[in-house]
């Protein structure tokens, strides 16, 4: 079998994007009535929904902290979300999903102003409807929107983006096929306005100078995502306000 070429001589990737281009992002906030906050996030073919409950009473007594809120996150994939069907038992609670849940939890524990909600908990539930790479980044971005919808005070957005390098070229926002190319997978999540790095996951060895270019591209990607998200949030909230005035 011939080696799949991930980047054509013209510099185009499998799905026709250039190395520094994101997939189309589609977002929607307030999709559910029952949850305190909810959001739908679509990046290319990756579709994910997030629901936030809270701040509310702590479900397990004795687990609460007296001066701040605790954040809990649960991540599950639908059994039809990937090309191979996953048995029901494995859609949550296995290593990969627990890792993503933990990643989201840590990202938002440091971003939510937890001291404003003492002795309470905030639950984030994530459900993947369709998966085509970049799940971790999508999970973080979707949670940001859902938390904003819930009206929970945060220091900043958290925007995440995956980057990698294929054949020595840094590429942004990988899809499923590219993720399996064996290149290093780097997830960067930042607070775009405060300029802090929330998490940086890199699980491969990469030369120093290449890593810097990957990181730089990742940061650009995160900022692009931030512009899309903040633009939507502003439109959404101004709609809410104008509706309220009408009533």
């Amino acid at each position: 079998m011939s080696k799949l070429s991930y980047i054509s001589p013209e510099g185009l990737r499998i799905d026709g994007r250039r190395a520094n281009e994101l997939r189309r992002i589609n977002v929607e906030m307030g999709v559910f009535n029952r949850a305190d906050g909810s959001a739908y996030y679509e990046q290319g073919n990756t579709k994910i929904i997030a629901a936030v409950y809270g701040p509310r009473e702590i479900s397990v007594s004795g687990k609460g902290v007296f001066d701040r809120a605790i954040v809990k996150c649960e991540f599950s994939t639908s059994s039809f979300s990937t090309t191979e069907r996953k048995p029901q038992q494995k859609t949550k609670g296995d290593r990969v999903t627990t890792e993503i849940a933990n990643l989201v939890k840590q990202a938002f524990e440091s971003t939510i102003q937890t001291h404003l909600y003492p002795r309470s908990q905030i639950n984030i539930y994530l459900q993947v409807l369709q998966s085509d790479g970049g799940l971790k980044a999508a999970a973080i971005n979707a949670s940001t929107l859902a938390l904003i919808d819930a009206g929970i005070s945060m220091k900043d957005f958290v925007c995440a983006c995956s980057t990698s390098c294929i054949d020595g070229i840094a590429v942004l926002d990988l899809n499923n096929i590219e993720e399996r190319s064996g290149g290093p997978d780097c997830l960067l999540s930042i607070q775009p306005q405060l300029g802090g790095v929330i998490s940086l996951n890199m699980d491969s060895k990469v030369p120093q100078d290449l890593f810097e270019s990957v990181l730089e591209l990742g940061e650009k990607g995160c900022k692009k995502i931030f512009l899309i998200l903040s633009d939507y949030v502003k439109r959404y909230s101004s709609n809410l306000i104008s509706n309220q005035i009408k009533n």
Partner: protein
Amino acid sequence: MEAFQKIHPLEFYRKFLVRSVRPDGRSLDDIRKTTISTGSITTADGSSFVKMGNTSVVCGVRAEVGEKPSTDKSKISSYNVHENKNIFINIELGPICSNTFSSTKPSDIAMSLCSRLNSLINRLEIPETDYYFDEEGKALWYLYVDVYCLDYDGNIYDAAVLSIISALKNVKLPKGVIENNDEYYKDLESPQRKLKIQHYLIPLSFSVIDDYILADPSLDEEKLSSGTINITYNELNEICLLLSTGTSLISETNLKDCMKKAKERSSFIIDLINNSNVDK
């Protein structure tokens, strides 16, 4: 007003029911706005999204190839021969759809609903030859139907049934080829086929509050109700499922009334399912 609703929800409802309306503006027989869309999940072999008022469910079907089970009579004696063994339905009511559900163990509602739906699926009467992977049927397709509730606002049964039937109607199976007895190939060049589903399922559920019977109950109404009635017809007006549960007795005239209302809904539902599955 709001405080009254919170403290005395039943009394609050009675005040409305006396005047034959419900707090959300519907009359007792009104059904919430129902929409069906299909094919939005491309990784699934068939998918649908159903919204009834605020209740939303997403359903995906994945097809897998498996060997034909042995037809040895002695082994399957405990099973009903007519029972469908090619479609497996699972419904997930996770914490995402309502804060009453826990994530660790499936709720009683989900489990009982799941078994009811699995028996209901036989009523679609899909011919066995339709599951054949290749022409002779040495191997069979097995369809895994997964229903996820995204927003739980009552009447999950109706939404689940509609999502399952429209997702199954959306399924497209490729033609299969078997070589050397155990090598399965999908022939992706020849056109994909659809399942021959011979019947429709037209569900309608009711909640009983005092002597009033409310069609398509919302979650608040389900919480207050003393009984529920699920009726499912097919397009020939044959009863596929009739279930009435709860603590209160239901008179025969009321039941007949409900059945009449369910029948009246059939043409609307059939149109809805057909329109959602028009090939683009």
